[in-house]
Structures are given as structure tokens and as C-alpha cells.
């Protein structure tokens, strides 16, 4: 038993989180009026794996707590307990509780058992209530639960009847191994029951038709015996009776108190490991577990929320291996060709190179696909969020999820979660009206929030649609004027007004209460999305609802870029940030005192940034008249960047410059062009800062010109 289990902890944590997610979504899907057996089974299985795993790895607290949950689930599963709506909430709370516990173990802090205790008490009340109604099982229960104490004081041994289900060998459980483990606890005799073995023609060689009568002598506790069967107890007939009480009750046991009795007694036993070496072992285990988890926690502190591993389908990996194989073959063919190259072989070489480039591209595409996950990973948290929030707000909400299978890069997924939560919350809190109000307006009492995801071109679009009140444009406008975000004389289109909610400074606390409310940190939402090279827009119709549309690149690793050059250097603008590119005339350019040139374009004044100037390089054209102006937008500020020439557009693979260097102002990354040279990708907001175009200056220019025009 000297295997270091701590190496598997991370896998256990990840699997448990997945299991909890399964439980949660299944719980939220339960229709109380017609409970579906399969759903309950699903929840039960998830809980069972978590219990089993945590028991194995020595996370006793989780195992104990999950066990209680599991017991009640088992009763529901076997129709001995009727599930009601508030039980669903209780289960949801316990899912949260288990998640917190696992999280605490992962971080290596000690488990906070307060919530768990409360919930456990609630479960026990339910379980007890159930037991009273069926007095027979209660009796069996009390009889059983008394036993563990006896066992400590010296049971001579145990009589065990073990009949596994047919599939036991296929699930990777080996009875022989279990018996060997039992034999370590004391003297063991095994009698096989072969009654059920079918005739040889009907036999399935992989099935287990045997049952066993085991007699274990010695001072083993029931807990220890149970532990041996921990993984199979739910799929097998297992009856454990103390040797001294052993009688013909076996059959009776089987009929009257199925797993209830056994399971509950096991539970009791784990709760009271007060005496003897048991405690010592348990203590040691916990201490060990803690030690390893703390060690891990130190190393992992910084990346704790973003899971570091990724599950990939084996088919994807097989594809990759095939492709690498092809690549190696092509490579060896080419090197063979290169050894004695003559000009006659040129067509062959060209062919080989074409093959090579094809394989490389395929390989690249497939590697990218590994990082792609369905967006359901990001959507999965919303049923719960909406469920809880609608309860708090006394609103009735139906959540519709569409396009859950749309795939998205994992890193993008991780960073889109928070903005999405923010937007959904906003829709729920401020968008949807209270049921009474909805009825008064002639709408369905039940509000509707739709999350929709789909691909469009090289982008993924995520929409958050609600059928609530919509944005109140008048109030937004008056508020914006009050805050000085727009001047009183401005005439804005509806879209421009809606766009105001994304401005920083608009999201004041006052705005939340006064206006229809939207605007809580909307600027943060927009900034987060822009950091991912995406954009967010809102459409709204008063009284009918709003649609928030998020547009994101499929991956952070690739970017659509516009190549430009200045002097001998080639730079890349992210295509999404480019508004337009123009050649200028003299009359379009105004020189503002202080040396800053501005471009007048359709009544807008845009500061001109000379790239050669801010980057200290030698250009072909120093003056604005000779070059081209590329108008780009970042942080809601537009600037016109002077470049020598526009080159092509292409997709570029983003490389980090921070990895081997350090951040450079005005540059967000680098890429490698077709000819093997490095080219830098420009960061618009960085350029704006570098050029010293502040928000205030920008506004001043535009305001000054407004008054001038007036």
C-alpha cells in the first residue's frame, strides 16, 4: 500500500468538479411532478463516485458528507422517499457545500464543517422521518447501528455473503483482490456459491456468475470490512453479519432491509471512529492528505481557478498521431531527395514541398482543435445562477440555451465566463420586470432569457436576449449629459445612446438605481471582451427587451491582421480595431496648438499618431500628406495612425514577446511572417497611451470644435 496517492489528487479534484456539475445540472432539470428515474440515477452515480474517490484519497469529511446525501438519493431511487421541491434546494446546497469542501482540500486549508454540519442535520431529519414510517427497516437500522460499537469491543469475526453483479469484472473490480485484502484483516475462509452458473453453452466468459460466503475471523471492524467492498457495495448483494449473531437471518435481511440498513450503519461507523487504532490510521491519513495538499497549494496558488489540464477525445489524438506520422514520412522523403539532388528531380521536390505544407496546415488545424471546447462549459453555470437569482428577486424566469455545442478556444472560454455572468445578471435584475408588472403590460408572466451561441465567419457570436423592459433611452441620455459624457447639444442616434452604457463613468452607483439600471460595470465587461480582441454591442427596444451581442475570435492564438509598413519594419494591426484607411488632403488636417495634428473626418476630430515618431524609427514618408492614415479604435478612442503603406491582410499566429523579453509599450505580441522574419502586432490602447492621447484631450478637441462649428 505504499503507492503515493497524492499524485492522483488533482485528477480526483477535477473529476469531482465535473461530477458536481453533472449533479447540479441534473438537479435543475428535475421536474418535481414527474421524477425521471434516469435523472436520479445520474445524480446518484455522480455522488457515489465522489464519495468513493474521497474515501480512497482520505478526504474523510467529503466522504462522510457525500455519504449522507447519497443515502437519501438511494431512498429516492428505490421509491422509498418522495422528493419535493425544497429537497431539490437542499441537494443544490449540498452540491455547493461539497464543492467548497473539495476546493478547500485543493487549496490545502482545513475544511469548514459548519455548513456541512447543518446540511447533514437536515438530511438526518429527513432520513429519520423516513425511517419512522417504515418501522421494519427502522428496527433493522437500530439493530445494525448498534453493532459497530459491539464490534469494537471484540466481535470474533464476520460472516459475509457477497454476490456481485454480472458486470463486476468488466468494471475493473476483482473479487480475488478484495478477498486478499480481507485476508489481511484476519483469518479468512471463502466458500464459493456456484448455484447460478449457467450451462457452458450460455456462459459469457467475461461475466461473473459466482457468489461467495466468506467468514472472517479476527478483530476487524465493520468499517474495515465495508471499506474493502466500498466500490462494489451498490451494485452487489452484500450482507455482513457479525459472527456471533450469525443465524439464518440472511434471507430475511435480503428482503426486508436492503442497502438501507447496511449503508446507514456504515455511516454511523465512520462518524464514530473514537477508539482504537482506527482513529490513529484515519488521523494519519488526514494529516498526510493535508500535507500533500498544502504542498500542492503553494505551487498552484496562482492558477487555482483555471484548470490546468484539458480532456481531449482519443479520436483527436489518433488523428494527430497519424498526421505526425505522415509529416515524418514526407520529411524523410525530402531529406532523401536533398542528399543527391539533381535538377531532374525538381518536380519531385516541388511535390514533396506541397505535401509538406499540406500536412503542416492540417496539423496546425488539428492542434488548434484540441483547445476547442463546446461552449456548454461556459453556459452550464447559468441554469443554477438564474434559478437562484430569480428566487431572490421574486421573478419568474425561463432560461433557454441555444447552440451549446458551438466550439470555442479554451482560453477564451475561461475569460468570457465573468462578462457573461455579468450580462445575464443585468438582464435578470434590471431587464426583466416583476411578474405583476409583466402581466399588467400584457406579457407572459414568465420572463425569458436566451443565451445563444453560433459561428459567423471566423468569429463566435454569443447573444444574451431578454424580453424585459429594454433600455430607457431618455434616462440614459439625460444621465450621460448630467455626467458630462455627452454635451447638451449632441444629437445621438439610438444606437449611439445604447452604446453609452459601456462608457466608463456611466456606471455610477446612482445610475443603477435611477435609470433602468444597466450600466453596472458595463465598461468592465466591454474592456474584458476587448482584451480578447472581441466586441460587444447592445440592441434594445423599449418595452420589448434587449439583445447583447458579443463577438469573439475563435481563438486567442490566431488573429486577423492588416500588415502595414513603416520604413523597413512591418507591423500588424488587428483587423477588428481598424475603422478605415484613408489618403488625406491638406484641408482635412488641422494643427492644434501643442503640436498635435488632428484629422477632420465627417465632423469628427481624430488625433493623428505618427508611428515612426512614437516608435523612433526612420520612415519613408515623414509627413501626413505623403503617407496613409489608418483609423483605429481602442478604449473608445479613435486615432489616425500614419503609416507608409498598407500591405496584405492575413491570419497570423500570435507569439508572446513577454516569454523571452518583457512587455513593450504599444505592442501586444509578435508573429512570424511567411519569410521567417518577426513582425510586431500593435496594441491600440497602448499606442494611444504612448502617443499621449488621453481621454480628456480627445474630448477637449472634439468639444472645442463643436463650439467652433456652432
Amino acid at each position, binding site marked *: 500500500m505504499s503507492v503515493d496517492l497524492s499524485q492522483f489528487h488533482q485528477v480526483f479534484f477535477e473529476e469531482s468538479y465535473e461530477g458536481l456539475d453533472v449533479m447540479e445540472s441534473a438537479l435543475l432539470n428535475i421536474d418535481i411532478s414527474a421524477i425521471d428515474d434516469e435523472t436520479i440515477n445520474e445524480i446518484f452515480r455522480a455522488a457515489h463516485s465522489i464519495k468513493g474517490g474521497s474515501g480512497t484519497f482520505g478526504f474523510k469529511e467529503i466522504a462522510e458528507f457525500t455519504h449522507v446525501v447519497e443515502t437519501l438519493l438511494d431512498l429516492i431511487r428505490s421509491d422509498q422517499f418522495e422528493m419535493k421541491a425544497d429537497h431539490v434546494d437542499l441537494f443544490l446546497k449540498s452540491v455547493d457545500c461539497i464543492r467548497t469542501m473539495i476546493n478547500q482540500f485543493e487549496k490545502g486549508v482545513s475544511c469548514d464543517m459548519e455548513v456541512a454540519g447543518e446540511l447533514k442535520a437536515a438530511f438526518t431529519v429527513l432520513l429519520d422521518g423516513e425511517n419512522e414510517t417504515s418501522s421494519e427497516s427502522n428496527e433493522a437500522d437500530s439493530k445494525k447501528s448498534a453493532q459497530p460499537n459491539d464490534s469494537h469491543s471484540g466481535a470474533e469475526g464476520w460472516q459475509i455473503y457477497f454476490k456481485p453483479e454480472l458486470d463486476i469484472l468488466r468494471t475493473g473490480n476483482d473479487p480475488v483482490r478484495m478477498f486478499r485484502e480481507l485476508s489481511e484483516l484476519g483469518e479468512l475462509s471463502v466458500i464459493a456459491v456456484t448455484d447460478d452458473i449457467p450451462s457452458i453453452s450460455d456462459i459469457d466468459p467475461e461475466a461473473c456468475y459466482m457468489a461467495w460466503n466468506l467468514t472472517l475471523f479476527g478483530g476487524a471492524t465493520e468499517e474495515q470490512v465495508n471499506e474493502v467492498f466500498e466500490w462494489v457495495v451498490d451494485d452487489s448483494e452484500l450482507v455482513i453479519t457479525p459472527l456471533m449473531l450469525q443465524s439464518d437471518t440472511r434471507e430475511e435481511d435480503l428482503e426486508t432491509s436492503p442497502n438501507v440498513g447496511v449503508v446507514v450503519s456504515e455511516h454511523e461507523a465512520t462518524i464514530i471512529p473514537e477508539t482504537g487504532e482506527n482513529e490513529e490510521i484515519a488521523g494519519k491519513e488526514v494529516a498526510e492528505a493535508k500535507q500533500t495538499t498544502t504542498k500542492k497549494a503553494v505551487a498552484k496558488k496562482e492558477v487555482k481557478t483555471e484548470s490546468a489540464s484539458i480532456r481531449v477525445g482519443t479520436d483527436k489524438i489518433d488523428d494527430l498521431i497519424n498526421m505526425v506520422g505522415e509529416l515524418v514520412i514526407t520529411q524523410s522523403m525530402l531529406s532523401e531527395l536533398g542528399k543527391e539532388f539533381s535538377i531532374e528531380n525538381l518536380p519531385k521536390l516541388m511535390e514533396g514541398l506541397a505535401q509538406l505544407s499540406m500536412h503542416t496546415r492540417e496539423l496546425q488545424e488539428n492542434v488548434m482543435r484540441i483547445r476547442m471546447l463546446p461552449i456548454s462549459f461556459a453556459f452550464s453555470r447559468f441554469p443554477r445562477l438564474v434559478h437562484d437569482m430569480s428566487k431572490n428577486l421574486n421573478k419568474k424566469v425561463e432560461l433557454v440555451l441555444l447552440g451549446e455545442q458551438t466550439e470555442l478556444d479554451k482560453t477564451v472560454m475561461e475569460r468570457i465566463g465573468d462578462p457573461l455572468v455579468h450580462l445575464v445578471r443585468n438582464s435578470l435584475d434590471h431587464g426583466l420586470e416583476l411578474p405583476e408588472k409583466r402581466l399588467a403590460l400584457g406579457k407572459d408572466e414568465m420572463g425569458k432569457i436566451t443565451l445563444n451561441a453560433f459561428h459567423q465567419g471566423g468569429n463566435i457570436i454569443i447573444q444574451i436576449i431578454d424580453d424585459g423592459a429594454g433600455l430607457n433611452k431618455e434616462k440614459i441620455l439625460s444621465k450621460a449629459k448630467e455626467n458630462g459624457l455627452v454635451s447638451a447639444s449632441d444629437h445621438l442616434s439610438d444606437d449611439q445612446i445604447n452604446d453609452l452604457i459601456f462608457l466608463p463613468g456611466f456606471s455610477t452607483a446612482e445610475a443603477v438605481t435611477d435609470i433602468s439600471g444597466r450600466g453596472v460595470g458595463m465598461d468592465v465587461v466591454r474592456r474584458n471582451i476587448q482584451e480578447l480582441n472581441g466586441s460587444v454591442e447592445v440592441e434594445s427596444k423599449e418595452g420589448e427587451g434587449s439583445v447583447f451581442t458579443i463577438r469573439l475570435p475563435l481563438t486567442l492564438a490566431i488573429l486577423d491582421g492588416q500588415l502595414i509598413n513603416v520604413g523597413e519594419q512591418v507591423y500588424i494591426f488587428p483587423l477588428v480595431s481598424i475603422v478605415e484607411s484613408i489618403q488625406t488632403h491638406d484641408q482635412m488636417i488641422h494643427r492644434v496648438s501643442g503640436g498635435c495634428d488632428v484629422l477632420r473626418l465627417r465632423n469628427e476630430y481624430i488625433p493623428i499618431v505618427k508611428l515612426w515618431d512614437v516608435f523612433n524609427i526612420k520612415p519613408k514618408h515623414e509627413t501626413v500628406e505623403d503617407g496613409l492614415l489608418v483609423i483605429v479604435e481602442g478604449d473608445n478612442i479613435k486615432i489616425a495612425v500614419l503609416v507608409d503603406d498598407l500591405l496584405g491582410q492575413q491570419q497570423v499566429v500570435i507569439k508572446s514577446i513577454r*516569454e*523571452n*523579453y518583457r512587455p*513593450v509599450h504599444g505592442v501586444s505580441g*509578435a508573429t*512570424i511572417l511567411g519569410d521567417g522574419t*518577426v513582425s510586431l502586432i500593435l496594441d491600440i490602447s497602448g499606442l494611444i497611451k504612448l502617443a499621449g492621447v488621453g481621454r480628456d484631450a480627445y474630448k477637449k478637441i472634439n468639444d472645442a470644435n463643436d463650439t467652433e462649428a456652432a
Partner: protein
Amino acid sequence: MNNETENDLDKVNNELSKAQADEQSDQYLTFFMAGEEYGVDILAVREIRGWEPITAIPNSPSQVLGFTNLRGTVAPIVDLRHYFGVETTSYGNASVVIIISVQTDKGEKIMGIVVDAVSDVYNFSKSNVQPSPELSQTKQAQYVKGLGSTEDKMVILLELTEQLIADSDIAADRHLLVG
């Protein structure tokens, strides 16, 4: 690049891998820069390459020449001449780039240093390395580990730190110190 230099590079790279296999000894790869011989810890050396065009980094300190493409990794190239106040020359086919890895708090960083020519691999035991007294007061001291001496010559052994690509302009600092 002509075949001869390529063969030379191959030879050096071979020797390099041999030396790296034998981790017991304190070995240094030495190179020439403006007639002076310098040495770097051979375990930090990744490979030796010929000169390739590089991409300038906007507003970088003068010793950082730019980025190069190292088989898909973007790595900065520095010119050590700036640290030691040696006149900079133009770079061309004769220049050699030594790719080194530098340990930092955040893991290792890969960078290249431009030199005139790679020389040899020497063994220096601890007793053969002396601190260089005249430098100990100046800023350059942090880039010099010590002076290694063999029977007939002396080699300046370099300390490889993240400071090589630091923000500040080394040349400017040096003038301040001198002035």
C-alpha cells in the same frame, strides 16, 4: 553563408553537446568581441547560429537589437559591446549569435548575444577564477562573474542575468558613471 562557416558551426555545436553531456566540470564557451575573449557558462548555451536579419523593437534600450525567429520562438538579441563600452560594429555574415537561456524568477528566458567569433571551450576550476577588482565598483560588475586564467591567456567570464534585457539603457548608464 558559405559552406566553411557552416561546417565550423556544426563542429562547435558538436563539441557543445559533448561538453554538455559531461556536467561535472565547470566549462565555459569562449568567444571574441573586439579582440577580447569572453566566456559564458556552457550549460546556459543552447546553440550557435549565424547572423540573421532581426526586427527592431520600438523604444528598446540600445543594447537590445531586436527580435529574431528561433524556430517559432520570438527571442531578443542583445549586443554585449554596449555593456563594456566597446565600439559597435555593423553586423553581417561574419557575426555569430550565441543563443543562451537565462534563469529568472518566472522561468527561463531565451536570448541571443551577438559576438565576432566563437573561440573554444575551456575548463576552469574554482581556483582559476578570480574576481576582477577594477570592475567591482562599477555597474558592469554585475555582468562579470570573474576572470578565468589559463596558462597563456585570460578570459572574462560573464554572469548571465535577466538584467541583460533590462529596461534601462546600459550605454547611457555607463556614461553617467564615467562622467
